[in-house]
């Protein structure tokens, strides 16, 4: 009997394979290997999607009946899925396979953390009264698409800085990467895309908070950190648009922004608590 846990376990290892394929493609300078990385990535995405849908169905079988977006485990799985989805769409549109190293690595790390950490409970749990709302799906999905876009942008930023600091002759490990101008442009588009979805995520959260808690903004740590993240990326977009920042500085701001994303996601749960503390419920 195929269960969602089996599919998601396969997903974890398949993303590792995918990351290794991309990585060896870049290192050994073989486009064929990277092509197989893409194929593995796409296939894994499909398996993972089946796993998520199956988990949704299973929760109805148990009698709890809710979308698999309710706790840390489920959000990590969704984050991995969203990162790979966004990356693969970008890859399809730009035909740049060498960028796949980081997204597939992040997807693997998210899945590995979800599956192997003792702090993350993978059991299907019932929903607390505060989470029983259709806004749950809208809020979590939009936030994590934003986070995922920022993760992809983070990967691009690292590659930008690596590529820029090492002027290597053609044929080196990084030479399969797009040129600097293209990396910068892709980075910008990814940040703008993430910014749109993060805004949507904050707004859906805000509308939901007004419905559930009676206030659309309460300076809860998670809310505040998502705003901090939003402000950092807003600063990035303004610096680029009005002050003409390009390349390195934008890449560094994007890296700082992604650190804020990580803190919003993990740091707040583990260190600060607050109204969103069901996210680390075990």
């Amino acid at each position: 009997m195929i269960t969602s846990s089996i599919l998601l376990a396969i997903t974890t290892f398949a993303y590792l394979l995918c990351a290794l394929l991309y990585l060896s493609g870049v290192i050994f300078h073989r486009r064929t290997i990277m092509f197989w990385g893409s194929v593995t990535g796409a296939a894994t995405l499909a398996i993972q999607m089946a796993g998520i849908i199956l988990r949704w169905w299973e929760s109805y079988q148990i009698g709890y009946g809710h979308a698999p977006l309710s706790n840390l485990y489920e959000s990590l799985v969704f984050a991995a899925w969203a990162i790979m989805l966004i990356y693969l769409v970008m890859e399809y549109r730009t035909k740049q396979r060498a960028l796949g190293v980081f997204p597939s690595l992040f997807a693997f790390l998210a899945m590995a953390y979800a599956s192997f950490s003792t702090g993350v409970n993978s059991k299907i749990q019932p929903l607390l009264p505060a989470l029983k709302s259709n806004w749950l799906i809208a809020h979590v999905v939009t936030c994590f698409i934003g986070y995922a876009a920022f993760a992809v942008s983070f990967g691009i930023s690292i590659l930008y800085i690596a590529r820029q600091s090492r002027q290597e002759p053609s044929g080196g490990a990084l030479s399969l990467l797009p040129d600097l101008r293209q990396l910068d442009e892709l980075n910008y588009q990814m940040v703008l895309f993430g910014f749109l979805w993060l805004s949507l995520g904050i707004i859906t959260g805000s509308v939901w908070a007004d419905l559930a808690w009676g206030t659309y903004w309460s300076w809860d740590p998670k809310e505040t950190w998502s705003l901090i993240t939003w402000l950092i990326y807003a600063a990035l977009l303004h610096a680029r648009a009005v002050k003409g920042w390009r390349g390195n500085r934008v890449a560094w701001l994007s890296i700082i922004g992604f650190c804020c994303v990580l803190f919003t996601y993990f740091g707040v749960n583990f260190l600060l608590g607050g109204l969103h503390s069901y996210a680390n419920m075990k």
Partner: protein
Amino acid sequence: MQKKGLWQGIYQKLASPKLTVVIFLVLAAASVVGTLMPQGLSEAEIQRHYGQRAIWFITTFGLNDLYHTGWFRLLLLILSANLVVCTIERLPKTLKVFRRREEQVDPEKLAKCSLNCQFTSNLPRDETEARLISIIAEDFGTVQRIDGADHLAGIAEKGRWSPLMVYVVHLSVLLVLCGALVGSIFGFKGFMNILEGEAVSEVTLEGSDRGLNLPFQVRCDKFDVSYYDNGMPREFRSDLTLIRDGKEVLKRELRVNDPLTYDGVTFYQSSYGAILKDAEVELTDRKSGAVRRLIVLFREWVDIPGTRDRAQILRFDEDFRQLGPAMVMLISRDGKEPAGSWILIDRDFHGNKVGNYKVRVLRASRIPYTGLQVKQDPGVWLVWLGFAAMLVGIGLTYYVSHRKLWVWAEADTPGKGGTKIIIAGRTNRNEISFEKKFNRLCDRLQAELGQEGGGSKP
């Protein structure tokens, strides 16, 4: 004169885009401080956690209620002023560009564009023109013709209004801030705890001791919690009845995530609990050994029969230091200062004594209450409007860029019936994909119309 200089200086500072970035980063940093420092601590708690010295610093800068301090609001005000001034400075220019229609195309300028291509068509002019226009229209939109007497000139553009979207986003931020301001001035936020069976009209306002009387009463007919098999709460539900001028005007169940709005006031299921109505206790006089049973009321003195002593229940805790339910009982002897102590309700504990009485609780009757969050916010629709505008603005900024393509064609000078063509393009965003599209167009035109004639293709 000097005053004018000062205001001009401030205005110029506010008009700088650098300020925007700085304000964003300062707001972010301040918010970080606000999340690291627990908010809403009292001075006593600050002293306990951070020591005597920190108190001055923390209270002076309001770090324990950072988001409501004057300086944080000042930051938001500066951000708003910056937004407004930048808009005043830039919008007229953007509008001018938006409205301006080019009246002629200068081939020399086109040739200087970073994105341009030039070639010569072998086909006659009429045919060249027709095909040129139709091919361009496929990918870049209809070509607006501004031909001269001896040449073809035209412009095709898409997303002309896209540079205006930034202003929509800026307006949306102002709308959200205005909505928050309106809400904080004209609205209120508070809570009310209603005992089962009781009707209440007073709301305790958040962050103050003041109360506010609603023009109607809220009665809690029943409060109920249901649980999942694993013990997690499944649902909190209050059955409410609203009473106005003695008449029941509305009956509804209130659940989490499903608020109730009546007369502009919204109620949310937010907490619950129970108070002690009364308790039947057995008091043993430790000196005489006399045992007396009586019913003690919550916060009301009751005489202990056969003595000149009196008793009351002062406080109740559903789970006192994880020892289960407990109450504070006061006993006053001969009308003297009362003595009090925590009495565990469910356990026969040796510490269950007050004064010279040993206390055993035989029965404790509770009344559950429902905790409602109550709110009136006349500014919320401005916030929603701002949110909608923000999404539209950011969304269209992302999806639509202003792309412009110029085309110019004239009969080739040597006069062999060929046509010289120059095409140039520009975009305000997504340069690389535009470049690709532009190069594809040029390749196709050259393939279909004629031979290459130079130009630059990055």
